[in-house]
């Protein structure tokens, strides 16, 4: 490229840096609802690691869990969401969410082989508590429908992320890596459990 091109660079830079509309305060209306719903499962580390662990465990269990979980999990979670919206009291939701990360992480770490029905039941119980926590926030959001869309898409993508990580089980080194990840998730779950029980400050 000729050096003459640099003569024009200042004009290009000037064009790029000239002020545009700031679009600040985006947490309102449709966009605000979408953003808050999408970020809600991502900003809570306990939710995030548990959702990824569900995907990894599903991949470890193989068929039919690997394809049943992405289809049914959001629905079961939505049942919990409805309970949260209706303010139906559930026992110790924060403790159960932390416990879900601990147990799902441990299941991944030891490559726990449960019958499909038992694994689905374990995941369903935890899904209700996770959905409950998200659903409780829905009525306060800028746009409840957009919040619901954002939260469901975000959760689904976290599962997909977990399933993708879980495909590493095809290789022996990948399997060990995933089991190590399960240990980390279980330890984080243990920390959040201790936190929710008030054992640590």
């Amino acid at each position, binding site marked *: 490229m000729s050096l003459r*091109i640099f003569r024009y660079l200042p*004009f290009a830079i000037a064009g790029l840096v000239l002020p545009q509309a700031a679009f600040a305060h985006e947490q309102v209306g449709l966009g605000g609802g979408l953003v808050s719903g999408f970020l809600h499962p991502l900003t809570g580390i306990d939710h995030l690691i548990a959702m990824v662990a569900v995907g990894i465990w599903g991949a470890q269990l193989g068929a039919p869990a690997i394809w049943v979980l992405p*289809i049914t*999990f959001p629905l079961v979670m939505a049942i919990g969401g409805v309970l949260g919206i209706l303010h139906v009291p559930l026992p110790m939701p924060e403790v159960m969410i932390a416990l879900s990360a601990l147990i799902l992480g441990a299941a991944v770490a030891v490559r726990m082989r449960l019958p499909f029905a038992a694994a689905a039941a374990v995941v369903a119980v935890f899904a209700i508590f996770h959905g409950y926590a998200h659903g409780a926030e829905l009525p306060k959001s800028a746009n*409840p*429908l957009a919040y619901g869309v954002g939260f469901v898409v975000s959760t689904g993508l976290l599962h997909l992320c977990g399933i993708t990580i879980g495909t590493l089980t095809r290789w022996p080194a990948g399997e060990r890596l995933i089991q190590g990840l399960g240990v980390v998730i279980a330890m984080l779950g243990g920390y959040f459990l201790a936190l929710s029980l008030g054992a640590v400050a």
Partner: protein
Amino acid sequence: MNIRLGRGLIAAAVLLAQASPAEAHIVAARLGDFYAGALHPLTDLQDVILWGAMGVLGGTLGAARGRWLVLVFPLGLLAGLALGQDFEITLTGSTVDAGMVLVLGLLLATAVRIPTVALCALAFALAVIRGMANATDLGPETDRLLFAAGLACSGYAVITLVMALVLAFRGADTSVPTSWRKITLQALGGWIAAIGLMMVGYSLAS
């Protein structure tokens, strides 16, 4: 890269960086109400979700069944618009909308092969209800014919394009129940049903 191409790229970059909304006010133009009718449903998330889900359902059931929606859906929108405007009948409401999202999501998630008649009835009912919903925002100065034409064209385009995309994505082989494409569409149905279920809960709570 030659110098002309470099200059052209820089000029294009400057033009793109400077581009701002056109502010053409097409709604105020001669055919403005046509554009208003076409764009009105596309700016409403409920319409976007419901129309999209209907198109996905039509696509998953195959071209032979889905092609009826190309005709039925726009006609339903027109019927709903007429009912809402002329007879002031409204069946709209957040619970009705949420219930429809839930039903469409469940049909997709369970991959039920509903008959063509049932699919057409469902699409027509959905289109009538959404047509009524769109009629509520018609002002006295709006050209109803142009608005209706825009709404019907929009419904036709969205349903046809979504079904075509789903048919292309699904591919020819749908006999394998664990085909990843089929599972993806079912998972999408699970997501849609989850959204519908939560909105049913929200509308009952509020």
